[in-house]
């Protein structure tokens, strides 16, 4: 059942891509643009879904919030979680360790600023982005009623953003996820952002 749901989610995401991507148009006539130039204020409602992962960990990340397309920034509320239990080790005291199964969760306010430097004929754009997740992290453990490793922290990151249509953007980058105590902090970050853009036909 879980496997089927996973397949359906992947299918849905691929289907969304097929609705929004037109590769023939996307790579026509690139034009260098000033990455610090801004337009007029264009706030939109947006959702995003993504993941950050490395060889030791994997988290899903979902968010909703403001997508500003004129000044190229976002402010979103995000929830991230590890969808499976991972075996970790606590040092409880001298010579005593616990081997226990852990899931982790983080709620964060994500601030992202993008600097586009290439624009194509159909207004798709490629640039760099910087992100800062300000959030509350905690771990839940099998056999313990209380959460542990609660931490308010900052998670900085950056990478390449590709706004491939007027309603969608794909980002690939790096995230320094150092709140996570039992995994390497350096993670890859993939994210698909969708927003409602009434100006699409203009």
């Amino acid at each position, binding site marked *: 059942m879980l496997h089927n749901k996973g397949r359906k989610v992947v299918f*849905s995401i691929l289907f969304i891509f097929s609705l929004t991507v037109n590769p023939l148009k996307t790579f026509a006539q690139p034009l260098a643009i000033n990455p610090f130039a801004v337009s007029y204020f264009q706030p939109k409602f947006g959702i995003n879904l993504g993941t950050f992962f490395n060889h030791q960990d994997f988290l899903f990340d979902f968010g909703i919030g403001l997508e500003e397309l004129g000044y190229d920034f976002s402010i979103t509320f995000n929830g991230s979680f590890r969808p499976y239990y991972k075996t970790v080790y606590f040092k409880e005291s001298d010579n005593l360790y616990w081997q*226990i199964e852990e899931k982790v969760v983080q709620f964060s306010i994500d601030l992202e600023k993008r600097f586009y430097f290439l624009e194509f004929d159909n207004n798709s754009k490629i640039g760099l982005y910087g992100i800062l997740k300000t959030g509350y992290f905690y771990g839940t453990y099998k056999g313990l009623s209380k959460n542990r490793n609660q931490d308010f922290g900052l998670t900085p990151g950056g990478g390449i953003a590709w706004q491939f249509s007027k309603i969608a953007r794909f980002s690939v980058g790096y995230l320094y996820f150092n709140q996570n105590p039992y995994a390497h902090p350096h993670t890859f970050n993939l994210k698909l952002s969708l927003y409602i853009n009434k100006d699409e036909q203009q």
Partner: protein
Amino acid sequence: MKNSIKITLLAVGIILFSTSCSKTKDDICDINIICYTEAPDDLYVKLELSTNPSSTPIEVRFYIGNMDNGELYDKFHTTNNVEYYLMPINERYTATAKYLVEGDTVMVIDSDRLSRESYKNCEETCYDWEDEIILNLKLKK
């Protein structure tokens, strides 16, 4: 309505539909299905253990509920790799096993809920359950 709004709503709708509308056992009516109308009151909790690297018996504790706020049900030492308890369903059970590894004590903790599912088949309530839950108390390193 502009295309972007349509596509965004369609995309969100597809995700919600595809993840929430899976056909479940609630939808079926098949007279050939074996339907257990009586649910078990007790099922097995299986504890799986490693051999203690120090070759001494392992201290095992078994809790009803969580380790930190549950009730200690049993405590014993064993050299067996498997132990069973027949316990009431709809409860969480937690077990711990203490190993001696190179002078350190490693306490392995695992927990799960013993439960059964029910579903409707042709207006009849049927029950489904696993014969046992496994608490994995094996050392992983």
